[in-house]
């Protein structure tokens, strides 16, 4: 029994030793999130010679509509970058205080997305009436008071992204949200978007249709 314990100890110490070469930030080597009931490790590609070769390496798309967008959507919406997004994934998402929103069309979302992101295509809010907006907002934690007023105190913080700096899908989404009164303070715009995410070799999720 003793020998077994020693052996176990050695194997554990051999494999348990972890040395992440490419960390996310200096303090965060990787993190875990849930995506559709699956625990997913969000890390960067560890091969230091890796270069993007297939997806998101395209340099040119016709502008309009694929034009380069300014840093800020408007004065109220805060623009964030990858470190803020990963911190958000680490702190806000597990406690259900915040959600990462993929504002792209469903087909984009299913092709590949950021782990833990949920898909609210911009057209949903863009073409919504007040009734629909109320439905969406209440899903996002907004409460309707007895007087019929909307109370956003418990509404979730949202990180909104689309394909990147040349993509205006999050613009349409955020504009739609603001039109119906979602507090601008609770919306964060991840401008580099999915291309920025891919560029850093961060983990993505692909959805596979269950064929039965």
């Amino acid at each position: 029994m003793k020998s077994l314990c020693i052996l176990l100890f050695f194997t554990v110490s051999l494999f348990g030793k972890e040395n992440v070469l490419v960390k996310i930030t200096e303090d965060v080597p990787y993190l875990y999130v849930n995506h559709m009931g699956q625990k997913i490790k969000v890390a960067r590609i560890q091969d230091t010679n890796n270069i993007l070769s297939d997806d998101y390496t395209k340099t040119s798309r016709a502008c309009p509509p694929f034009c380069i967008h300014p840093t800020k959507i408007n004065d109220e919406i805060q623009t964030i970058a990858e470190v803020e997004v990963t911190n958000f994934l680490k702190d806000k998402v597990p406690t259900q205080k915040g959600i990462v929103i993929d504002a792209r069309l469903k087909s984009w979302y299913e092709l590949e997305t950021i782990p833990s992101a949920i898909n609210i295509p911009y057209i949903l809010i863009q073409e919504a009436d007040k009734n629909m907006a109320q439905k969406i907002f209440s899903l996002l934690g907004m409460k309707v008071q007895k007087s019929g007023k909307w109370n956003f105190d418990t509404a979730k913080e949202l990180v909104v992204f689309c394909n990147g700096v040349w993509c205006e899908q999050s613009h349409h989404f955020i504009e739609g949200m603001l039109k119906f009164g979602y507090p601008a303070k609770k919306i964060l715009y991840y401008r580099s978007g999915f291309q920025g995410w891919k560029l850093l070799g961060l983990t993505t999720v692909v959805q596979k249709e269950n064929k039965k």
Partner: protein
Amino acid sequence: MFKKKPSIEHEYMQYNSDDVIGEHAPKTSFLSTIIRLLTILILLGILIIGGVFGYRYLQDDRSVKVVDTKPEPTPTPIVKVTKEQKMYTQDEMQAIMQMMMQNLEKQPKVESTKTTVEENTQSKEAEDLLIASLENMEADFMEDIHLATEINETDSTKEITQSSSDKPVDNYNKVVVDKTTSPYDKVDALSLEIGRLVKEMEDKKSTKKSTYTQSITKEVRTRKDAMRIIIVKKGDTLSKIAKRAYGSALAYDRLYSENPDLAKNPNRIYVGQRLRIPLAENK
């Protein structure tokens, strides 16, 4: 230990005789059973560890060089020196100076290049010789870079095998998730609920789409159809190609959809063959 030696021999004899093993078994001391157990465990452990490392080694097989559509940079051919080439612009001079500085750091290399250069351009004037040597240095310098990257590659794979304790992160870093119909947590439920709303909306307004929406749906389609073409090299197998393309040697069947000839006879690949590699997940 030593005193027991005759008894062990005796046991050995008993073992080889026609005696029943059961009779012999209780005579072994407690210590020896422990030692036997230990050796068995250690052997087992070595076997397991060896198996794991062997498997990883096979998985991270790096001996295959990646074939890309990009042609490999070839070292620049030795330029024959003519008198017109004496005129250098300021930028060119600067570049040559930089290369010279870098080559100075690698003294042995420089010497070898100089000797080859001398052989090539013996009949030329001394001034031409210097220029020629500088130009030849460029070629060698490029080779040096190639060597450096190769060394880096081998280094980095070592680091990967060392660091991967969880699931190894491959060069695509994609996790395939099954679509669920039953919500796992609140966020999941929210996602499903919104999915339902989206579907409702799509059913309502299937014909009416803004121009922007139309153009981006087109973009999705081009991405789905996106493909890369690789050229088969000597020593390639389908599984090696699949490993390069998708990070898994078992994904070779994904190549079949775009290469119908392969589906008929997977063994028929030849050097120089162009294979179409679909990028997006097949649905």
